[in-house]
C-alpha cells in the first residue's frame, strides 16, 4: 500500500500578467497507491492550477514532479502526452466528450491512442467499463444525445480505459445535481474499494471531500492542512 504514485516537491508557480502573482507557494506532498485524495479550498486558492501541473499539461512551474517515481520536468511534449495517455485518467467539470463520436468511440479513443491492444480488444474493454458504470445501453448513442450525469459517467469510463495509475478530477461533480453527484462519488469510492484505484479530486463540494480518505486543504497557494 505504500507505493508512491505521485510526488510533488516544492512546486511553485506564478503568473506574470499583468503583475507578478505567485499562485502556488512551495507545494510538497505525496500520494500513495489506493488513496482517495481530495483537494479543497476557496475559489482562486490555486487548486486547479496545481491539478493542471500535476497532470503534466501545464509545464511552466518550478519544483519537481514525479509520477510513478519518474521525474516529469523538462520532458518533451510527446513524452508527456504519452504519460497522460498511459498513467492518468481525467474527469472534468464539464464532461468534455467529443460530440462527433458516439459514446463507445469516446471511451475507446485513449485506448486506441495507446495502441497496446487491438481495436477489437479496446472495444471489449470499453464495453466492460461502460457495463461496470451501468451505462452500456448508451454505447451507440452520440455523445451529444445523453444527459449530463450520463456524460460524466462516460467520461469516467474513458478515464479508466487504459487502467491508469491515477484518476484526476477537476470538480467532477461541480456541474451535476445532487443525485448525480452522489452517483459519481459512489463510482469513485467503489473504484477505490474494489480496484484499489488511486484518485485525486479537486473540489469545493465539502460533502464530497468529507467522505474522502484524505483531504488536502489549500489557501492562498499553500497547503494549510493535509
Amino acid at each position, binding site marked *: 500500500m505504500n507505493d508512491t504514485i505521485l510526488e510533488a516537491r516544492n512546486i511553485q508557480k506564478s503568473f506574470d500578467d499583468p503583475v507578478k502573482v505567485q499562485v502556488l507557494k512551495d507545494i510538497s506532498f505525496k500520494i500513495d497507491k489506493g488513496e482517495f485524495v481530495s483537494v479543497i479550498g476557496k475559489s482562486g486558492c490555486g487548486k*486547479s492550477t496545481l491539478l*493542471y501541473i500535476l*497532470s503534466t*499539461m*501545464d509545464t511552466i512551474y518550478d519544483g519537481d514532479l514525479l509520477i510513478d517515481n519518474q521525474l516529469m520536468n523538462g520532458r518533451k*511534449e*510527446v513524452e508527456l*502526452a*504519452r504519460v*497522460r*495517455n*498511459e498513467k492518468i485518467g*481525467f474527469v*472534468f*467539470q*464539464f464532461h*468534455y*466528450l*467529443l*460530440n*462527433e*463520436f458516439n459514446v463507445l*468511440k469516446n471511451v475507446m*479513443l*485513449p485506448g*486506441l*491512442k*495507446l*495502441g497496446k491492444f487491438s481495436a477489437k480488444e479496446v472495444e471489449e474493454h470499453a464495453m466492460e467499463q461502460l457495463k461496470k458504470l451501468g451505462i452500456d445501453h448508451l454505447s451507440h448513442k452520440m455523445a451529444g444525445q445523453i444527459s449530463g450525469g450520463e456524460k460524466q459517467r462516460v467520461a469516467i469510463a*474513458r478515464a479508466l480505459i*487504459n487502467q491508469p495509475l491515477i484518476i484526476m478530477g*477537476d470538480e467532477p461533480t461541480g456541474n451535476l445535481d445532487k443525485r448525480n453527484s452522489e452517483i459519481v462519488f459512489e463510482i469513485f469510492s467503489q473504484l477505490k474499494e474494489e480496484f484499489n484505484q488511486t484518485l485525486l479530486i479537486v473540489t469545493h463540494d465539502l460533502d464530497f471531500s468529507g467522505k474522502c480518505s484524505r483531504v488536502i486543504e489549500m489557501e492562498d497557494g499553500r497547503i494549510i492542512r493535509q
Partner: protein
Amino acid sequence: MNIRLIISIAGSLLFARLKQTAVAAIGVTFSIMMFVTLLSFMSGLNDLLDGLILNRTAHVRLYNEIKPNPEQPLNLSEAYKNAHNFIRSVKSSNKRKEIYDNASIMKSLLHDPNVRGIAPRITAPVFFNDGAIEITGSINGIDVEAEGKLFFFNDYVTDGHPTDLKNVSNSIILGKGLAQTLLAEIGDVVQVTTSEGERFPLKVVGYFQSGLLDYDKVQSFASITTAQKLLGKSNSYITDIQIKLHDINLAPAKAIEYEQRFGVDAEDIKTANAQFETGSSVRTIISYAVGVTLLIVSGFGIYNILNMMIYEKMESIAILKATGFAGKDVQRVFMFIALSIGVVGGMLGLFFGFLLSLGIDQIPFNTASLPTIKTFPIRYNPVFYGIGAIFSFITTFLAGYLPARKASMVDPVVILRGK
C-alpha cells in the same frame, strides 16, 4: 495503427461539418476544373494558331537567294587586302534559282537521321490572265504526296482532290481568293503567263484555303512536272527543298550546317517565324497565371474553413490532448482534413475539367479562314491534369499547414480552465 486512428478522427470531424468541408472542396474543384479547361483550351488555340504557320512551313528551307556576291573582286586583290574597301553600286549577281545537283542533295538529306522528310518545290512568279486583266500570283510546283505528308496540304484543299494534280495533266489548284478574283470554277481552264512570256492553259481541279487571306489571293499549286513544263525547264529543275526535322529546335543549327555542306542558302523556321513562338509562350504564361491564381484563392478558402473549424473544435482538441494525444497527432488530424479536401476536390476538379473540355470541344466554331476547324480547339494533354493534381495537393498542403500547426499548439489548460 496510429494512422488509422488519426484518419478516423479526421473523418468524424469532416463529416460532422459536412457542409463546410463540401464548400471548401467545391472551391478546389472549381479552381482545378477551370485550370484544366483553361489550359486545354488555350493550348488547343495555340496549336491551331501555330499550325496556321508552322504546319505549312518547312523547318529548314534550302534555296538560292538572289543577292550580291559577298566576295567582290576588289577584296580578292592582294594590294588592297588590308584596306577598308568601299564599293558602290554593287549589283546582285545573276545566280541560277535552280538548286544545283538537287538529286544528290535530297539523297543525302534522306540519310540524315534528324530529317523527318523532305519535299522538293518549284516556286515561280506568274500572271493569271482574266480577259484583259493580268493578276500577279505565283505557282508552286509540289510533290503532292510529300507535301500532304509533311505539310498537311490535303487539309487545306477545300474543294477537289489534291491527287488530281498528279493524275490530271496540266492541272492547277487555285487559292480560294485567287479563284474568286478569276471567277474560276473547278473544271475551268485558266490562262497563265510566265515571266518569260510563255502562255499556258491550266485546268482548275480544286481550291486551296490556308486561312491567311493574302496568301490565298496569290498562291496556286501545280505538280512539279507541270511547273517544269510551264517554265520550260528540264525534269531535274527544283528551286526549293523543304525539310522537316524530327526536332524543330535543331532547325537553326541544321540550317547553318546545310548551308555550308550544300553551298545553298538555308532559312530556318525559328528565324523566319520568331513572333509565333513568342505569342504562344505569352498565351501559355497567361493561362498558367490565371489557373494558379484560382488555386491560390481556393487555398485561402481552405485556410479559412480550417481555421474556423479549429476555433469550433478547440474543446475537442483540448480533450484529445488531455487524454494523451500529442500536438503532432492533432496536427496530423488537421493536415489529413486539409489534404482530403484537396485530393477529393482536386479529383472532382480534374473530372469536371475533362467534361467541360469535352463540352467546349462540341461548340461549333466556323470561320472562313480556318476551313479544317469545325469546333473550338481543345488539346487533351495528361500533363495539364498532372499539374492540376500536383497544384491542388500543394495548395491544400500549404493552406492546411498553418491552421494545423495552430491546432497543435492549443494549450489544453487554457481551454479546459477557461470555461
